[in-house]
């Protein structure tokens, strides 16, 4: 691609609070810099002081359940909504005072493929290019280049109406990229896609990273954020409740999870007494009294020790496993509910 590839380092894992300050990007390095965004819809407070800083060239995930404020945040940053309070700078431009300036620098792909389905893929590309005021010839050339890259060349002259969901979504993102935006907003880019299209979309988004395009991605899917985003911003009830790499967020709930099953319920107390000193927090005993779950320090290679200790105590071990917490565990810990808990989705 023509754009220079930023010599961008993946955000360093923050081990110490002072390291965090040193790594804070200066305002000029920020593609998105939002402070205290507030937006009301009637009595509903959709955004309640959102702060969001995204360095240039990074892919950030905005994660939260339905109604948490993800889409509202994106709509404010893309000038579709005017915030009631707060400042939103995109590529250094104020979204409120210079919306056209922001619009020239961004690409937006919403939750529904925003394509003109009566036109062909190629016509869609040049149509949007011309609305960015690119010369017609440039719009056509850039359009063809993107169609090629997004594997749509064969379908370029077909009317979009007959496209599959995955093809539409690819075309949609290609259209967002036509004017080489410095910031790309992807609002739930894989919602409603079948697993195969979803995987293809992920690969495509990962390729954007190589171009140096800044991407802000909203999603309800934890695996999506986990895979694509360098940092994840968790939003709930209209404000940011956590911000970090996937690993940092997982560490927040206390490292890895140890799960031990024993054969005989009589050994329960012995097993508990043996496990306690090996774990970092309280050991949970499951209903049948033979399964124990507890957090352990990440990467401690605790399994051999656990087996040996239980063996020495005369406890008959059936199974021992260690797993990293998923972002679902994280979300549950942070918000007290899972991402799919739709009943509580209305922000208060």
């Amino acid at each position, binding site marked *: 691609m023509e754009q220079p590839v930023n010599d961008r380092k993946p955000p360093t894992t923050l081990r110490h609070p002072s390291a965090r300050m040193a790594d804070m990007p200066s305002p000029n390095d920020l593609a998105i810099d939002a402070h205290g965004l507030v937006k009301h819809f009637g009595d509903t407070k959709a955004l309640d002081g959102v702060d969001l800083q995204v360095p240039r060239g990074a892919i950030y995930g905005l994660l939260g359940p339905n109604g948490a404020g993800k889409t509202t945040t994106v709509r404010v940053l893309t000038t*579709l909504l005017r915030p009631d309070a707060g400042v939103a700078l995109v590529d250094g431009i104020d979204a409120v005072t210079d919306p056209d300036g922001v*619009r020239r620098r961004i690409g*937006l792909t919403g939750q529904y493929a925003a394509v003109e389905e009566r036109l062909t893929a190629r016509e869609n590309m040049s149509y949007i290019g011309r609305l960015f005021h690119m010369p017609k010839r440039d719009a056509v050339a850039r359009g063809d280049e993107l169609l090629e890259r997004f594997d749509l060349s064969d379908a370029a002259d077909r009317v979009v109406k007959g496209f599959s969901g995955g093809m539409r979504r690819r075309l949609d993102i290609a259209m967002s990229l036509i004017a080489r935006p410095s910031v790309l907003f992807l609002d739930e880019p894989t919602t409603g896609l079948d697993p195969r299209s979803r995987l293809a979309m992920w690969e495509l988004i990962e390729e954007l990273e190589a171009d140096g395009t800044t991407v802000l991605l909203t999603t309800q899917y934890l695996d999506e954020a986990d895979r694509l985003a360098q940092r994840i911003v968790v939003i709930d009830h209209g404000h940011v409740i956590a911000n970090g790499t996937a690993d940092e967020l997982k560490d927040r709930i206390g490292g890895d999870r140890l799960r031990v099953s024993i054969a005989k319920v009589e050994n329960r107390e012995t097993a508990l007494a043996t496990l306690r000193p090996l774990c970092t927090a309280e050991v949970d005993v499951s209903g049948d009294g033979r399964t124990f779950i507890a957090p352990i320090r990440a990467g401690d290679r605790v399994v051999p020790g656990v087996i040996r200790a239980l063996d020495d105590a005369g406890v008959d071990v059936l199974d021992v496993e260690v797993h990293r917490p998923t972002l679902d565990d994280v979300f549950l810990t942070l918000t007290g509910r899972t991402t799919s808990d739709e009943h509580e989705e209305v922000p208060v």
Partner: protein
Amino acid sequence: MSRVGLAVHDSWVEAERHLRIIPRNIELLIFATIQPIMFIVLFVYVFGGAIQAPGYSNYDQFLIPGIFAQSVVFGSAFTGVGIAEDLSKGLVDRLRSLPMARSAVLVGRTISDLLRNVLTFFVMLVIAFWPIGFRFEGTLFEAFLATVLLLMFSYSLSWVQALMGLSVGSVEAANSAGFIWMFPLTFVSSAFVPPETMPDWLEPIANANPFTIVTNAARALYNGLPVGNDVLYSVMWSVGITVVFATLAIRKFNTSTVA
């Protein structure tokens, strides 16, 4: 490019989006053309013998300008439906995030509908000349002026339709809402019968109807008859409706957000 230059450019890009698909949607084009042809044929052959139109060489010369007027006005209903359809999809949301003139979405739509109306008009004109036997009895310039007046009026109603398309919630609603008021507007008028033949309470309504004024002006011009102030009033009505409803529609488009 200046701000106005960009707005013109963007409007044309938008108009082109709609015009491009006309040749691809042959069925729509055929049905859009059949309706006015059917109206001409039905009215001329069904009512033609029964209705007298004093002052005209025959009823056809009276009736056909009325049908022209009605057909181009009906053509404006496409605007509301098209806008409602656009809004129901994600595309408009994308357009709002582009550095384009926002008015272009509506201006482009009304312009493309106007051009489509010109096309329909010419098809009707051909049918009216042959086999019906309609003639311009005034000068060619008068006939041209008559046509411009009709299209201007239809364009102004496109903006009324645009506002309705932005206000109703669905394409279906836009379709019904767009057509329903067209019937009283075009029938309680001088388009098909002289208002003097209507009941006393209806006649003044028909005479005050702007559609009557535009129809009268066009009819006089096509027939080479004295037109009086109707040309001026027609232009005033068309410009007035356009200014008021374009302002309202563009304002509504700019402030409304799709949920």
